[in-house]
């Protein structure tokens, strides 16, 4: 294993590519929820920035940032996957265990990115149609 650089089979970027999307979604979810709860509590409901309600604007900004990061993690996973596919058959068999495992991580990472991109956007969609601080009445 000494003569071939196999560091790409095991480095933090591969981990980020695999598990980054759900972590980003978790942070995004917490942030948008707290933004609404806090925003409504401190009176942001009546504040507007460039004609957009401040609560809505912060939710949308957080969503754009989260979506961007998730796409980024998906790209990282995809590029790792491509790199693995481009290995020679000799390298594939020499590092079979590592290659199979890294491919598994990359595939999971790509799928997570797609799934959680959908989830992030779907969660934020109501911000386009609902007023920020109306209390749900039975």
């Amino acid at each position, binding site marked *: 294993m000494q003569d071939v650089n196999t560091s790409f089979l095991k480095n933090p970027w591969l981990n980020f590519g695999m*598990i980054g999307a759900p972590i980003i*979604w978790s942070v995004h*979810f917490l942030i948008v929820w707290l933004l*609404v*709860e806090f925003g409504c*509590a401190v009176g942001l409901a009546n504040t507007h920035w460039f004609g957009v309600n401040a609560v809505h604007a912060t939710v949308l900004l957080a969503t754009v940032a989260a979506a961007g990061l998730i796409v980024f993690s998906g790209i990282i996973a995809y590029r790792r996957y491509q790199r693995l596919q481009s290995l020679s058959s000799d390298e594939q068999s020499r590092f079979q265990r*590592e290659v199979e495992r890294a491919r598994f991580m990359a595939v999971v990472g790509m799928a997570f990115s797609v799934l959680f991109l959908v*989830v992030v956007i779907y969660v934020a969609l109501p911000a386009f149609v609902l007023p920020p601080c109306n*209390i*749900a009445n039975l």
Partner: protein
Amino acid sequence: MAATGQPVNDDIFEYVPDDEFDDVWNPPPGLWGRLITVQNQYVGMRLIFLSLLMFTLAGILALLMRLQLIRPENNFINNETYNELFTMHGSTMMFLFIVPLVEGIATLVLPQMFGTRELPFPRLTSFAFWTFLAGGLIFYASFFFNSVPDGGWFAYVPLTGPKYSPGLGMDYWLLGLNVAEVGAIAGAIEIILSFFKMRAPGMSLNRIPVFAWSMVVMAFMLIGAFTPLIVGSLLLEFDRKLGTHFYNPEAGGSPLLWQHVFWIFGHPDVYIQFLPATGIISTIIPVFSGQRLVGYTAVVLALVATGFMSFGLWVHHMFATGLPELSLSFFSAVSILIAIPSGVQIFAWIATMWRGRVRLETPMLFALGFFFIFVLGGITGVMVGVAPFDFQAHDSYFIVAHLHYVLFGGAVFPIFGGLYFWGPKFIGKMFNEHLGKWHFWLLFIGFNVTFFPMHIVGLMGMPRRVYTYQAGLGWDIFNLISTIGVFMIAAALLVFFYNVYRTFRFGEKAPDNPWHADTLEWGTPTPNYQYGFRRLPIVHSRHPLWDEDKSIHEGTPEEEALVETLALWPRHYRAQLIVTTLDARPQEVVRIAGPSVWPVVGSVGAMLFSFFLIYDWVIPAGISAVVTAVSLILWHATNRPDRPEDPAKVAEFERRTGVPVVGPKSPAMNRWTMLLTLGSLAIVVATLIFVHLYLRVESAQWPPENITLPGPLLPGYAVVMLLAGAIAHFWAATGYRRGEMSRLTTGLIAGGVLGIAAVALCVYHGTQLSFTAQTNAYGSSFMVLSFVVLGTLAVGVLMSLVTAFWAIRSDYSVREYDYVQDIALYWYAITAFGLITFAVLYLLPYFI
């Protein structure tokens, strides 16, 4: 196929027969030996039987409730008793049945499924069992002391607060269940460490069985969900016993805060119970279809995704409490989307059966029963995830039907399937197939007869948790049918218990692999050795017993040399292999702990501590706490081998295998354990910060009237000292890595002294404040958050100074001080906690 195989003889590492291995791994003889055993197979069985006992107790309570509801205006049970029954039933099922049962199955099965010998910390496993038992005993002792909890399994305040529940019932609930929850977390830590670090060589991340994936996701969720619940429960107990005001609206507290903290636990808990069950299904279906699981990667992805998303649903239990529509819609969206990963698993199972040839033996019947019931429960779950429908169905029998379809169908059926599946391997005898089928059909029909009518009666308007109802509302016939169904369920369970009894007593001897299964636990002889695999297998695929042509012990020359040598030596203690996290390359050989009475003593101490606190007997409670603390110290101090190994053999082993023998102090395990500890502490601090911020959001004025905002100067100095302490620890850790022991000692002492100064400064600052924890909710959350952060700092100081003391005395070899790097990690984390807490308590009020 070769099972454990016979190790070859060797010039240096003399061959010993299996009997000698048994002496090291089996429990000591006699009743005492059985008491102090920590072996995973014993503890796993005990957890399973304890959970089944709890299930039976809770089932009897349900039977009594259904008898009361068999006809309108019945007076079999009065309203107070009915409240007690549904509280005990729900709480037992949620806290004392499924969680310990799935942890029991994991404890029993995982080491052998991973192709290894034991879980990483057997004494912690034992502690998990004894604390579960202790928690259950306290909880059910409430019947004997006439203080049965009656506030529901959700314990909503203000009903359960000091004003409306002045009796001791809720104290039994809070303190008893907290003890059991500690056991749950202990079990979860074992599962996580085992999953990542204790697998057979070659079992890389993509070759780990799906059952293990489901268990590790469950274990992470358990730590993430139970920790906030323990914190929230303690805060409620503080309200009841110490006069704090977290949930008291008259002093700035919030009853809704409890609902948030409870459901942050409560909804993931549904998946904590469901995901291991899906892992069982993903194990049973391929075996009984003779077909590899279709979509392994997709199923793993679904498990992990469900684990994450389940933490974004909790507010759907609070749709009717009057929240902002927008935040409510966030939770509604996730409640609907979580059906995607569940659907992925369902389709993977259908495809597996489709491509295979299904054998309808008892475990498979339970898997199919799960399908039918869980899909119905999932559909009604999506329905109640939609807020307008939930407004209509909330608190009605529709919800009772839904949750039983999800939990009984989604968890209990697969668990029974799992017991029939793995039972023969670990009991050593086959269950009676005929009785198994009777059990299934009675349970399946009885379940649907009981719970399906509840959908209808719920939509007709029958509220849940009522002890009786008027005649003429159209509910009578449905309630009668439900009660008849419960008797069928009871009959099913009687058949099951008879089958268990019959199997133990008269069952046929089980073959090594009666189901022709694919995973490694079936690669050992039946009945199993306590050490699982003497000669470890080497894994090349996800289905080792289906795919290996010759022997499961063949691999690279290095790995073969390792498993051969490890089968011979070390043999005076319980040796276990640690592997790298991703690729399962051999990393270390560690010595794991043997039998000990101290986990038992520690659990008894915890039980008595909680019990005495219920009655405000402070001195006995203090003594019990000391007993627990001392037993924890002795638990570690007594973890020594009977005789030391020959250093020449250690050197030869390391030369031959390239794997270091590290004794009980494994650097890899220390790092993981520290990370898990810090993760749990972070959740505690995050929960308390959430509590503080939530109370701020609910308050019109912050800090409340008559309270001056505390000045940031003194705590600011303390934070600077904390930062300096972290730098000192960084210096110590880097010094250790360079082999400079003097730097290690100086850095630890400097960091410890700075920590003491920071604590002293904060304590002095606390005496100058104009409020206490009893003043109002602001004071309560301010003080408790500060106290917890200072407590973590005090622990850090203790670790650093004790280690510095040992280093000065040269008590251990240099290699054994590797854990100083973990102490440094701890200091970085508590410095972060300190900084964030300082910002929240002292700076944030200037902005919001």
